[in-house]
């Protein structure tokens, strides 16, 4: 197990390097100058030149890139140009909010999608199955910029039960988490249902039934375990996407997360901050992938044996 994790970690490095290189290249291709945005239009050319020198932006691109990589290697993400603070601090201020929202949305989506998908597959063709399919399709199709305000209108304005926006206690988390979770849940429900239907048609299920295994056990133990493999893959990918910051949901609910920060950093051409955010997102993806791999092994003993 440990060897597998280490192997994955070694493979991760070139991936992160590739991501960071691409972001570095794209950022410097996009028009716009952080120093001019920072100092304003009427800044003296000498001041612009001095600040550009301080920030290392007057060096050739390869030199800037090498300096950037060296800093990362030493755990230094640099200083945000717009916020005039260490990038790690700026990201550290926002990342907990993203983790909180993404975690809540992920747990909500998973805890509802799996039972609903299993039930729909076990009662395939029933009214419950049809309702679940329609609801999951709707969940997957509803855009958050529409769903979010609709939920606010219903639960915050109409019923007055929940806060409209912002980050605070658990009540503040409900609407953004539901908005974010519904899309993911819609996809997962359909996937769980399809995987379960496939698993339930397998020979080993027929054998289990012939041996007199109770119906619930056939579904919950024999079929579900096998059906969860593709679900784990998709859930892992979606969890990574959630950690990358749900820009629209964060904007609608005034949630101070990483997604909004990335947009602000790009607008200000804050190169160090954008690079820091992308690196954070990349590491998040990698971590989620590692966890997904571990979950695979927990579900499928053959993978453990392969180690």
């Amino acid at each position, binding site marked *: 197990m440990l060897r597998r994790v280490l192997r994955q970690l070694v493979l991760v490095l070139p991936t992160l390097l590739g991501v960071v290189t691409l972001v570095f290249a794209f950022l410097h291709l996009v028009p716009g100058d952080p120093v001019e945005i920072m100092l304003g239009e009427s800044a003296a050319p000498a001041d612009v030149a001095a600040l550009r020198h301080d920030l290392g932006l007057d060096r050739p691109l390869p030199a800037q890139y090498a300096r950037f990589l060296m800093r990362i290697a030493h755990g230094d993400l640099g200083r945000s140009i717009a916020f005039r603070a260490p990038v790690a601090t700026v990201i550290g201020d926002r990342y907990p909010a993203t983790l909180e929202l993404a975690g809540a949305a992920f747990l909500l989506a998973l805890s509802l999608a799996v039972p609903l998908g299993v039930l729909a597959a076990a009662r395939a063709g029933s009214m419950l199955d049809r309702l679940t399919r329609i609801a999951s399709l709707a969940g997957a199709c509803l855009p958050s910029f529409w769903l979010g305000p609709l939920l606010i209108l219903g639960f915050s304005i109409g019923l007055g039960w929940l806060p409209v926006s912002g980050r605070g206690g658990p009540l503040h988390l409900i609407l953004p988490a539901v908005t974010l979770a519904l899309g993911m849940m819609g996809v997962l429900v359909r996937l769980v249902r399809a995987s379960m239907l496939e698993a339930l048609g397998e020979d080993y299920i027929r054998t289990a039934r012939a041996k007199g295994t109770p119906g619930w056990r056939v579904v919950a133990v024999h079929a579900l375990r096998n059906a969860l493999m593709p679900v784990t893959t998709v859930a892992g990918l979606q969890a990574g996407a959630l950690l990358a910051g749900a820009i629209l949901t964060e904007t609608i609910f*005034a949630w*101070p*997360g990483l997604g909004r920060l990335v947009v602000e950093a790009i607008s200000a051409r804050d190169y160090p901050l954008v690079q820091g955010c992308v690196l954070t997102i990349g590491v998040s993806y990698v971590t989620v992938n590692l966890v997904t791999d571990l979950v695979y092994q927990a579900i499928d003993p053959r993978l453990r044996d392969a180690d």
Partner: protein
Amino acid sequence: MVALASEPQSLDPRFGTDANSARLADLLHAGLTRPDAAAQRVPELAASWEFVDPTTVVFHLRSQFHFADGRPVTALDVQATYEAVLDPALASPKRMALTMISHIEAPDPATVVMKLRAPFAPFLDATGLGILPADRAREAGEVTLGAGPFRLLSVTPGDRLVLAPNPGYPEAPSRLDPLIVRIVPDEVVRSLELHRGTVQLTEDPPQPEMLEWLGAQPHLTVKRMPGTSFDYLALNLRDPRLADRRVREAIAASLDRESILRFVLGGAGRPASGLLAPEHWAFAAGRSPRHDPERARRLLDRAGYRDPDGPGPLPRFRLLYKTSNQPGARRLAEAIQAQLAAVGIALDVRTYEWGTLYADVRTGNFQVCALAWVGVGDPDLYYLAFDSTMRPPAGYNRGGYSNPVMDRLTRRGRQVLDPARRRTIYARVQRRAAHDLPVVPLWWEDRLVVHTRHLLGFEPAPDGNLRGLAAAWVE
């Protein structure tokens, strides 16, 4: 609770340049002077000032101001703050506006003497800089300790700032204790927060339709007052078609600004004749572009751009119109596109993310674009925007306009100290700009503020500052 659309990037008066940084720094800090509704400088830390000679200004400080930590504000604090900003090592974006200062002295705790390199009439516009304690003025990090009506209690990045009254502020302490400023980027959600009463005020009003709805709510008040922001069409005069004054006049005459105002801003503005609004001390009433499509067609014919197929689909010529991807900017683009099409000018509209658009404007990579001057102060802006030497990066003359008469007038306007003579000079400047049309004036935007009826005593300011909160309270 106040809602803002975006997070201020800095609460430090030495660094913040975005609108919300200025708004919040203005609550935390006090400057020597501040602008009134006519853009004239009025006392704040300085009780009075005088030009003892054309290059020496003496400020006499009031003794009642204290920083939020209880220390009195003295001339040494003023000197240290200005010297810090002037130090290139600090890389302050405010430095350029102060470079006319050659030397600052503090002969006693209540007197500041500023020596200028040359007579410079707009100098007082630079004296709004928030003053920091002398021992902190050179810190590279963010300093929020000031002598304004509020002090900062806490910041939750991206979410909220909590302020409390500054006991050292000479006027009666604010009854808003605490004052919470929340960042709510989505305009619909800001409106819903107001509707529910969880936010009491926003200075960033939504689109006209939503504003109408808010105005109809019994517990909300929409306040409108004349503003100082000037919206205009920037034209690149390096393009041979736009270099022709007749074409620029035709563009101005083709626009029905009243109807566009209604469509884009719900009527919250006044068609403009130039940079300075009628409330400005240097405003001179003058010629304002009049909607006259027939005249526009005649002007274009005379300029040699005849319509190839009359009322047919072929245009006289095409222009590229660049704008930001904000909803209001897109609506404006559509309206202008339709009205120019009526006189035979085809407009290709391209929307860009702000950083990209700004870079194009700076480098002159545009033909037509809609821009705005927010919070117009001293009329010296005419020099920065229209003097032939003020093309970027030196100034704001992005369209490359050049006229020796304008150059002479605007340069004279920054040297003459007598306000009456300056008013005369700028009256001529305004007439020249109205004739030459280096930009096409659109309108002066009204200030719109929405607040709950529970918020009492709040008076909005023409430039959108939030100082009115110091005298406000919630019932």
